[in-house]
C-alpha cells in the first residue's frame, strides 16, 4: 500500500465516524437540547446565586416542583393526544379551595377530603373531555372557556368561604406530612411527582391505553381508521389531566393552607412553557413523561432563580420570555433539521482495498473467462414469482422459493407449472435449508430465523442475539438474517448481512464497506443464540463443508469466500478460501461431486473498486448527491461459479447479456439439474448438468438417505 493509502486506512480505522450517525438515530437524542438547556440554567444560576445549589434551597425548590411537575404531566398527557388543557390553573385553584373547605370548615378526615378533591378535578376534566372528545369542540377554546368559568366559580367560593377557611384549623399529622413531610430527605410532593412520572412513563410506553393515546396524537385519522376509540381516548386524557391538576391543588392546600385569589393565575402559561420546553410537541404524538419532568425542572429553576437573583417583576418576565423563545427556537430548528443531518452523516464510509480482480476476458485462459452457458436455461414460474432470493428442493422434487410478498411458494414436480403458497411468513424470506426432520428453516429479512414444519406450522426460532458491549446501535435485534446452514449436530449457523441498515438499503452498506455484518449460531437444543463472528463485510451465503466441523461463508463486499471452523483442532479460526473474486458473492451450496456452487450477484467495476479506496470521496457523495445518483455495485450481470475447498475454480457459468438471470443470488443442484434464483428476478432458472450425478439431492447429502 502507498503511504497515502496507509494513512487513509488508519484514519478510517481509528476514528469512529459512524458513531455520530448512530447517536443521532437514537430516540433519546430528542432530549439532548432540553437537557442541555437544563444544565446551562442550573450552572448559570448556581454561579449567579451563592447558595442556590444548597440542600435547603433545593428542598424549597423541589417542594414547589412536585406540584408544578404534576400539572406539567397533566398538560403533557393532553398534548400527547393532540389537545391542550388551559384550565389546569383554575382546576388547581378549585381543588385548593375544595380541599381547604373540606378540611378547615367541614372537618372531614384527610382521606375523604382527598377523594372529594380529586373527584372535583376529574369532574371538570370530564366536562372538558365530553366537550372535546365526544362533541369534538376545539380544545384551545373549550379549555379557555372552562378556565374562565372555573376561575369565576373559585372567585365566588372565595367570597363566601375565605374568612371561614382562614379561621379554621386542622389538627392532623397526615395533613401536616403531606404538606411538609419528607420521604428519605425528599419532600413528599416531589417524591409523589417522581412516582407518578414513572407510572405515566410506564403506561405510555408499555401499555395498550398508552399506545392508543400516542397513536391518536400521532395521527388521529389513522388511529380512527385502525379502530382505536379516538373519542374515548381523548376524553380520558382530560379526565386524567383534571385529576392530576386537582392532586397538585391538594398538595398546594396542604403546603400553604391558604386560599388566595391569585392561586394558579397564569399557571397554564408556565405549564405550557415547561411542557414545550421539555420537548413535547404542540399538536401531539411526540413527548414523554421524562420530557415533561425535564421541562418542569428547567422552568421551575428559572422562575426560582430569577426571584433569588432579585430581578424585579419586569426583568423576571423579560428573561423568562427570552429563554423561552431561545429554547423553543432551538428545539424547533433541531427537530426540523435532525433528520436532514442524520441523512447526511449516517453513511460513514470506511477504507477498503480489494485485491485486483481476476480477468474475465472471453477466450482467455482465466478460469472466469466469459461464456454464455446460462443463455439456454429453461425458466419456471416466469412472471408469476416475485424475487426468489433462494430456491430449495425437497426429496419429492418440489421447489420452494421465498418471494418479496412474504410468501414461501411451492412449485410442484414434475413440470413445475403449478404452484401454491406453501406458507405465508411475512417479512422477506431469504436463505433456506431443510433440517434433519424435514422442516424448512428460513432466514427472514426484518424478522429473524423461522422454522416451517412439513405441516406448514410456522414457529420463530430466534429473533435476537447477545448485544455487543458498548455498541451504540442496538444490535440485539436481528435486522437482516440472510442465509443459513445446519451443522450435523443440529446447530444453525446464519449470517446477518448488516446491523446498520434495513433490508432495502443493502447497496448503501456496500457503499460504506465498513464491515457491519456478523455470523450467529442458534442452538436448538439449548435455545440460545450467540454471535460468533463480528465485523464481517456483508456476510451472505453459508454452506457446511463435508467434514462436519466447518462452514464456508461469502463476504459480498469483500469479494471473498472464507471458511470458519466451529469444531475439530482448528475450532474458532477463519481461513480465506478465495481471496479475490471478479464479482460479489452471494449464496454457496453443495454440488454433487463434493465441490461447491457459488452465486455472484454482480460484477466488480474499476470505478467502485477505486472509490472503495477513497472514503472521503464516498462520504462527499453520500452528503451532496441524491441517493439515486450514487455509485452502486453493478448487478446487471450474473454468474455461477463452482469451486472446491482449496479455492480452485472448476467451472463458471455466465449470462453475459443478462437476458435470463441478470442478478443471481442462489443456485441449488438437484438430480442433475441446477435451479437458479435471483432476488430481483421474476423467474427460477433450470439448467441441466450433463456430468452431474442424476440422483444426488441436497437433503440426502446432508442427512443421508431415508
Amino acid at each position, binding site marked *: 500500500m502507498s503511504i497515502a493509502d496507509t494513512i487513509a486506512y488508519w484514519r478510517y480505522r481509528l476514528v469512529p465516524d459512524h458513531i455520530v450517525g448512530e447517536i443521532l438515530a437514537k430516540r433519546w437524542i430528542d432530549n439532548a437540547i432540553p437537557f442541555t438547556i437544563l444544565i446551562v440554567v442550573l450552572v448559570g444560576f448556581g454561579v449567579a446565586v451563592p447558595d442556590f445549589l444548597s440542600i435547603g434551597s433545593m428542598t424549597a425548590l423541589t417542594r414547589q416542583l412536585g406540584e408544578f411537575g404534576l400539572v406539567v404531566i397533566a398538560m403533557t398527557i393532553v398534548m400527547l393526544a393532540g389537545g391542550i388543557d388551559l384550565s389546569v390553573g383554575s382546576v388547581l385553584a378549585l381543588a385548593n379551595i375544595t380541599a381547604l373547605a373540606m378540611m378547615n370548615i367541614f372537618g372531614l378526615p384527610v382521606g375523604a377530603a382527598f377523594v372529594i378533591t380529586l373527584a372535583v378535578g376529574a369532574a371538570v376534566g370530564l366536562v372538558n373531555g365530553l366537550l372535546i372528545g365526544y362533541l369534538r369542540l376545539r380544545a384551545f377554546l373549550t379549555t379557555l372557556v372552562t378556565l374562565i368559568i372555573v376561575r369565576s366559580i373559585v372567585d365566588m367560593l372565595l367570597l363566601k368561604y375565605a374568612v371561614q377557611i382562614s379561621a379554621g384549623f386542622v389538627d392532623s399529622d397526615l395533613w401536616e406530612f403531606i404538606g411538609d413531610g419528607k420521604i428519605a430527605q425528599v419532600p413528599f410532593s416531589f417524591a409523589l411527582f417522581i412516582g407518578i412520572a414513572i407510572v405515566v412513563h410506564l403506561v405510555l410506553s408499555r401499555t395498550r391505553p398508552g399506545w392508543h393515546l400516542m397513536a391518536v396524537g400521532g395521527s388521529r385519522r389513522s388511529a380512527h381508521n385502525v379502530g382505536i376509540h379516538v373519542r374515548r381516548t381523548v376524553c380520558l386524557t382530560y379526565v386524567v389531566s383534571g385529576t392530576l391538576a386537582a392532586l397538585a391543588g391538594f398538595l398546594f392546600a396542604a403546603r400553604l393552607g391558604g386560599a388566595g385569589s391569585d392561586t394558579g393565575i397564569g399557571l397554564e402559561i408556565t405549564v405550557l412553557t415547561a411542557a414545550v420546553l421539555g420537548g413535547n410537541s404542540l399538536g401531539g404524538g411526540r413527548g414523554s413523561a421524562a420530557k415533561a419532568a425535564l421541562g418542569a425542572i428547567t422552568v421551575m429553576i428559572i422562575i426560582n432563580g430569577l426571584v433569588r437573583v432579585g430581578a424585579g417583576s419586569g426583568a423576571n418576565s423579560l428573561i423568562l420570555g427570552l429563554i423561552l423563545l431561545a429554547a423553543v*427556537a432551538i428545539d424547533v430548528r433541531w427537530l426540523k433539521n435532525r433528520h436532514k443531518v442524520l441523512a447526511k452523516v449516517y453513511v460513514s464510509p470506511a477504507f477498503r482495498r480489494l485485491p485486483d480482480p481476476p480477468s474475465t476476458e472471453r477466450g482467455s485462459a482465466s478460469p472466469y473467462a466469459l461464456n454464455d452457458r446460462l443463455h439456454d436455461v429453461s425458466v419456471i414460474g416466469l412472471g408469476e414469482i416475485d424475487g426468489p432470493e433462494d430456491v430449495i428442493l425437497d426429496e419429492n422434487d418440489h421447489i420452494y422459493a421465498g418471494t418479496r410478498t412474504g410468501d414461501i411458494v411451492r412449485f410442484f414436480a414434475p413440470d413445475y407449472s403449478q404452484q401454491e403458497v406453501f406458507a405465508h411468513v411475512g417479512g422477506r424470506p431469504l436463505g433456506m435449508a431443510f433440517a434433519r426432520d424435514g422442516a424448512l428453516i428460513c432466514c427472514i429479512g426484518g424478522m429473524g430465523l423461522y422454522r416451517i414444519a412439513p405441516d406448514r406450522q410456522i414457529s420463530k426460532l430466534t429473533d435476537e442475539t447477545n448485544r455487543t458491549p458498548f455498541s451504540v446501535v442496538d444490535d440485539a435485534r436481528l435486522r437482516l438474517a440472510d442465509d443459513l446452514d445446519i451443522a450435523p449436530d443440529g446447530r444453525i449457523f446464519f449470517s446477518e448481512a448488516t446491523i446498520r441498515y434495513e433490508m432495502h438499503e443493502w447497496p448503501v452498506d456496500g457503499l460504506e464497506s465498513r464491515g457491519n455484518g456478523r455470523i450467529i449460531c442458534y442452538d436448538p437444543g439449548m435455545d440460545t443464540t450467540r454471535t460468533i463472528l463480528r465485523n464481517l463485510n456483508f456476510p451472505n451465503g453459508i454452506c457446511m463443508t463435508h467434514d462436519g466441523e466447518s462452514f464456508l461463508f461469502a463476504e459480498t463486499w469483500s469479494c471473498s469466500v472464507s471458511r470458519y471452523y466451529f469444531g475439530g483442532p482448528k475450532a474458532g479460526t477463519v481461513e480465506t478460501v478465495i481471496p479475490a473474486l471478479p464479482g460479489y458473492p452471494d449464496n454457496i451450496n453443495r454440488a454433487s461431486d463434493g465441490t461447491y456452487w457459488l452465486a455472484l450477484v454482480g460484477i466488480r467495476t474499476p470505478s467502485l473498486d477505486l472509490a472503495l479506496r477513497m472514503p472521503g470521496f464516498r462520504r462527499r457523495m453520500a452528503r451532496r448527491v441524491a441517493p439515486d445518483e450514487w455509485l452502486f455495485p453493478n448487478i446487471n450481470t450474473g454468474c455461477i461459479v463452482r469451486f472446491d475447498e482449496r479455492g480452485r475454480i472448476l467451472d463458471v457459468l455466465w449470462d453475459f447479456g443478462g437476458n435470463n438471470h441478470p442478478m443471481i443470488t442462489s443456485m441449488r443442484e438437484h438430480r442433475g439439474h441446477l435451479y437458479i434464483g435471483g432476488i430481483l428476478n421474476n423467474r427460477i432458472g433450470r439448467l441441466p448438468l450433463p456430468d452431474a450425478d442424476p440422483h444426488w439431492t441436497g437433503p440426502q447429502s446432508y442427512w443421508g438417505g431415508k
Partner: protein
Amino acid sequence: MFGVANLTQERIVLALALGLTTVFSIALPGFLTAENLLSLVRSVSVLGILGIAMALVVIGRGIDLSLVAVMAVSLAWTLHMVATGVPLAVALALGLAFCLLAGIITGFLIAYVEIPAIFATLAMGTFIYGFGRYFLITLDVVYLPDAARSIVWIGSGSFLGIPVPVLVFGGVCLLGALFLRYVKAGRYVRAIGDNLLAARITGIPVRPIIVMQYALSGLIGFVAGLVTATSVASMNIRVANSTFVYDVILVVVLGGIGLSGGKGGVRNVIVGTLLIGVLINGMTIMDVQYTVQNVIKSLILLAAIVADTIINPRDEQTAQQGDI
C-alpha cells in the same frame, strides 16, 4: 329564511344578540335608549378594535397572544415619554414604531424560525411586558400627562353626538374589511389561512405576508391603546398579565372566525362584539356580580361553539393534524 345548512355560527350569534336586545328592551327600563346604546357600543369599542387585529391574524391561521401586552407597553411608554418632555408627535411616532417592531419580530419568529404562533406570541407577550416594565417605564400605571391633553378627544370626545371611540371602531372595521377584500395582501392572508402549502406553491410570498399580519396586528393594537389611554387618562400595563387577551379571542371566535384560519371576516367580529356588549350592558343594568357575568359570558360562548360544532361537524378524515 335560513335552512339549517345556512345556520352559521355568525347567524346564530346575531340572532342571539338580537334576541337578547329584544328581551332586555322589554324587561329592562332604560336599555333601549340612544344614550345607553351608544355607551354600550362605546364600552366594547376597544374590545372590538383589538378583535379586528386578532381576526386578521386568526384568518391567516395564527393567533396573537401578545396583542394586549404590545398595546399596553407601547402606550405606557408613549405617555411616559411625553411626561418626561418628549414632544407628543415624536412620542406617538416612537410608540407606533415600537408596536410595528414588536409585530415584525413576532412575525419573524413565526414565519422564519417556525415557532408555533401560539407559543411565540405567548413568549413575546411575556418578553414585551418584561422589557417595558424594566427598561421603558418605572411604574405599572402611567397617567396621561398635561402635555398630551391635545389627544384626549380620541377617547373622550364625540362627533355629531357619536363618541369618537365608536367612530374609531367603525373606521378600523371599515379599513379592515377593505383590506381583506380589495388589497392583494389581504387576499393573500386569507389564502394562507385557508391552505398554507397551497398558497406557497401558488407563489404567494407566505413568510413576508405572515410577518405583515403581526405588524398590522401591532399597529391596530396601538390604535386600541390610544383609545384606552385617552378615555381613562392612564395606562396600566398590568393589563398585559390579565385575561383580557382571552376576551379578545372570545369576541373573534364568538363571531364565527375559525381558529384553523381562512374563514370569516370583519362582520363576524362586529357580531361577536355586539353580543358581548349587549350582555355586559344588560347584566350591568341588572346589577349582576362581575364573576357571575364572567360565567354567563363563558357559558354563552360555550353554547355558540357547541352549536357551531353540531351544525358544522368536523370530519375525522379531513381534520387537520395538530389543529387545536
